[in-house]
């Protein structure tokens, strides 16, 4: 319940638990467009494996939605569809009212993703990894890019690690570099794929705080895919429970807690607690 208390404190406008807060440089830079996400009748099969069987989901602008579900239920596949890495068999995804397959979508919206594997470029240093988007799209001059990158790295607690290669970083540090890389894109929507898997409790808390900071200070729309129930209730405005390729429940954390549906209760009640009962 520690995370819950902290979340309540946050609701009252308290500072983040990591003690760092958002740096001024990054805060001035990040300007969320507050886009909503609308997923309608999304279906996807890989051969005989029907992974998504008609997903309908509405996420309001500035909202943090958490998609909870067991492993292998299609959470990551759904995320890959939202960012355009997979083409659906049927259905549409609208971000800010625009279909993600529209040719002009990328010109009007930036969607970034923090991969479960971090997906850092191993041949580039931490600084080059974070700066890649800004450099390739020539968003700013070299001095401004350097300033933004170091500000973002400071926020994720990696100040002074600019010249290190990803192979020298721990799993948690890699995840934080990936988060920094997603943040400097100044996204309208940010997707997190299992942001805390493999992290220690302290680092899990830091990631949770970062997501809350983004929600409260930038009001950026976020979708978090996880099976970490603590994290889900800590950061979410709304929680969707994904089971067998369908959203079986979607509501606020309180609504999910009070839900009497067996499948939902089974998932959100930890196994140890169930056994103890």
């Amino acid at each position, binding site marked *: 319940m520690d995370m819950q208390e902290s979340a309540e404190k946050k609701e009252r406008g308290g500072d983040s638990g990591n003690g760092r807060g958002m740096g001024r440089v990054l805060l001035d830079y990040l300007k969320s467009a507050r886009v909503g996400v609308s997923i309608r009748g999304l279906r996807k099969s890989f051969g005989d494996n029907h992974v998504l069987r008609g997903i309908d989901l509405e996420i309001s602008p500035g909202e943090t939605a958490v998609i909870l579900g067991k492993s292998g239920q299609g959470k990551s596949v759904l995320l*890959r569809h939202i*960012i*355009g*890495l997979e083409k659906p068999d049927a259905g549409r995804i609208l971000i800010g009212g625009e279909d993600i397959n529209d040719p002009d979508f*990328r010109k009007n919206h*930036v*969607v*970034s*993703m923090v*991969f479960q*594997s971090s*997906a*850092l*470029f*191993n*041949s580039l240093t931490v600084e080059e990894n974070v700066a*890649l*988007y800004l450099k*390739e*799209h020539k968003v700013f001059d070299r001095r401004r890019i350097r300033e933004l990158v170091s500000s973002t790295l400071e926020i994720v607690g990696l100040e002074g690690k600019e010249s290190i290669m990803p192979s020298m970083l721990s799993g948690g540090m890699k995840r934080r570099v990936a988060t920094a*890389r997603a943040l400097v*894109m100044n996204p309208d929507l940010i997707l997190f794929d299992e942001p805390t898997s493999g992290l220690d409790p302290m680092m899990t808390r830091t990631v949770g705080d970062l997501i809350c900071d983004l929600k409260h200070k930038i009001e950026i729309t976020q979708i978090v895919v996880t099976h970490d129930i603590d994290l889900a209730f800590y950061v979410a405005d709304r929680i969707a429970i994904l089971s067998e390729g369908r959203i079986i429940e979607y509501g606020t954390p309180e609504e999910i807690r009070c839900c009497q549906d067996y499948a939902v209760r089974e998932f959100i009640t930890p196994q140890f607690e169930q056994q103890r009962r």
Partner: protein
Amino acid sequence: MNGVMSFLKVTGGLVSLLMETLYWCKAALKNTDKISDQLLVIGYQTLPVGALIALFSGGVLALQAGPTLARLGIEENVGGLVGLSLVKELGPVMASILIAGRVGSAMTAELASMSVYEEIDALKTMDINPVKYLVMPRFIAMVLALPVLVIYMDVIGWFGGAVVSAVNPEVHLSFNVYYRNLSDLVDFTAFCNGLIKAGIFGVIISIVCCYVGLKTKGGPREIGTAVTKAVVLSFVLVLVFDYYVTRILLFFGLD
């Protein structure tokens, strides 16, 4: 039937990647840093091993052909024979095999590993085209470096042939005679012939190795398999295209 479908799929994939790479060549001037990084790996770092191979290939040509020509009383033609063999055939083919094995394999391994560990997906999410960012610099560097490497290997191979012709008692040909005959027979057309082949082989190796790398899925075992596949496919295509390019060059009188 599956074999035919797979062949058509790979051929289509290679042609499509080539077309897309050619399209992105328009961004070459803005990516000179990436191209020069690749040139360093493909060209500069291949020079020592390229020199060694060329020196001994030229030497062995002279060693094989010299005594036979000497018995026929035409040993002064060793220079021309070694020169032409290297410029038209051995130079481009040897350099291509060397580059496919040394650089192409590394290229496939790097891109395959990037595919497997979602780095290519990460690029796409950043709206960075993987062909523009990864394939185009490698393609241009390969097409530029391979002909230069061929000239370099030709020159060293000639020298290897000259040394062996001079020290072999059965031939005992002076450097002067060797190089005079070589310059009489190796003309500009023959030189261009080798360079055209080198350019085409550069296209083949870079596209094949990048294609196989980018299409890799799975884990570490698949990365290894992809490297083997890319190198073998590059070797085969280089030798097959060598025949057809020679036929075409002969047809146009460029031989």
